[in-house]
């Protein structure tokens, strides 16, 4: 979680305009709600710009579910804040929301015509498949640093079951967070560490000390 901080503070200072443009692009390809934002955030902010880690984005995503506002908007703000503080957060959220705003303003006048075109409907059913693929590929990547011991596996399975039964994500996220906190306070020894990246680092340190 702390790996890239010094680096981002010193060497990386992305311009607000660039930040806005990245999020505008993400907003343009975001179909079917905000859930699909993660793969794009990962490719733009982790791989290309190296502003935050995948682990942080996953944290942001979980937190976004339990605070007011849109999930996609909130995740964008967290990431934008990480890059450039409050101004970055505003640039990011404006970027991600602007395509949504413009598209509705533009098509409002000939709306009823558009939705009845069969081509439009078939485009969107194919898009749904692509979005599914993106979501599941993202999960594969999130897996290794989110679910790495029995307890996190337990939380994952419980949360899937709860979400399937339409329990509010708000409740799921709050309970998962409290469970993580309680588990590490009550069983400090059993918990190897709370954060996989730190875990690796500490393991590395120990090894070098041994040597």
């Amino acid at each position: 979680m702390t790996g890239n901080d010094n680096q981002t503070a010193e060497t990386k200072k992305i311009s607000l305009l660039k930040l806005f443009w990245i999020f505008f692009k993400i907003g343009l390809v975001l179909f079917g709600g905000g859930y699909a934002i993660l793969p794009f955030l990962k490719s733009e902010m982790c791989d290309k710009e190296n502003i935050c880690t995948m682990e942080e984005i996953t944290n942001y995503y979980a937190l976004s579910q339990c605070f007011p506002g849109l999930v996609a908007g909130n995740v964008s703000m967290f990431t934008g804040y990480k890059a450039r503080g409050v101004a970055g957060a505003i640039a990011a959220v404006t970027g991600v929301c602007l395509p949504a705003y413009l598209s509705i303003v533009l098509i409002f006048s000939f709306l009823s015509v558009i939705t009845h075109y069969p081509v439009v409907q078939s485009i969107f059913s194919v898009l749904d498949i692509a979005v599914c693929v993106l979501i599941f590929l993202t999960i594969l990547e999130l897996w290794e640093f989110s679910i790495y011991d029995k307890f996190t596996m337990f939380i994952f399975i419980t949360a899937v079951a709860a979400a399937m039964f339409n329990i509010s994500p708000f409740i799921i996220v709050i309970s998962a967070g409290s469970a993580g906190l309680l588990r590490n306070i009550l069983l400090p020894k059993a918990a190897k560490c709370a954060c996989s990246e730190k875990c690796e680092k500490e393991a590395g340190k120990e090894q070098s000390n041994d040597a």
Partner: protein
Amino acid sequence: MHNVLLLAFEYMKIGAVAIGGGYTVIPFLYYLVEKYHWFNVAEITQMIAVSNLTPGPIGINMATFVGVKVGGIIGSAFTTIAFMIPSVIIICCLAKFLKKNQENKYINFVMYGLRPAAVALIGVAGLKIMNTTFFHFEKFKAAHNLFDIISLKALILLVIFTAIGLKMRKNPMILIVLAIIAGCFIKV
């Protein structure tokens, strides 16, 4: 103009309480219909459909839609901005707090529990989309043909998209563009 300001104020209230994304706004829309009669229930259904078809977060699509309906383009700008203001303030404060307390071990304990829950929520969101695209239970009920339950074309596309997606991990946007092109020619 009076209507626009009133709507913006109502939407700011919605923005302050709608937790968990765009769909949580829908019940508030019904409440607006009952209170102000700016639009009707049938239009809400149309709004949801259109918001699903347009790019961007669904909540913004719907806020813009309501705004245009009540107060034209100016109305839509007011509504959308008012809708975002509460979450901008809240998230900025929270992000600041997190930045200050990065090393705090209790926050890391909470995150340890949060991450698997986030993965689960994303996964279930994906499953719900899958449910509507791959399974056609109505068709099956109509024709009683087992092959109608699962859409074969959708499955083939799923395999192709997964292959492309794995190759193009660095550039997921390409997959969206390809899907739009494919959608012009293929009916699922």
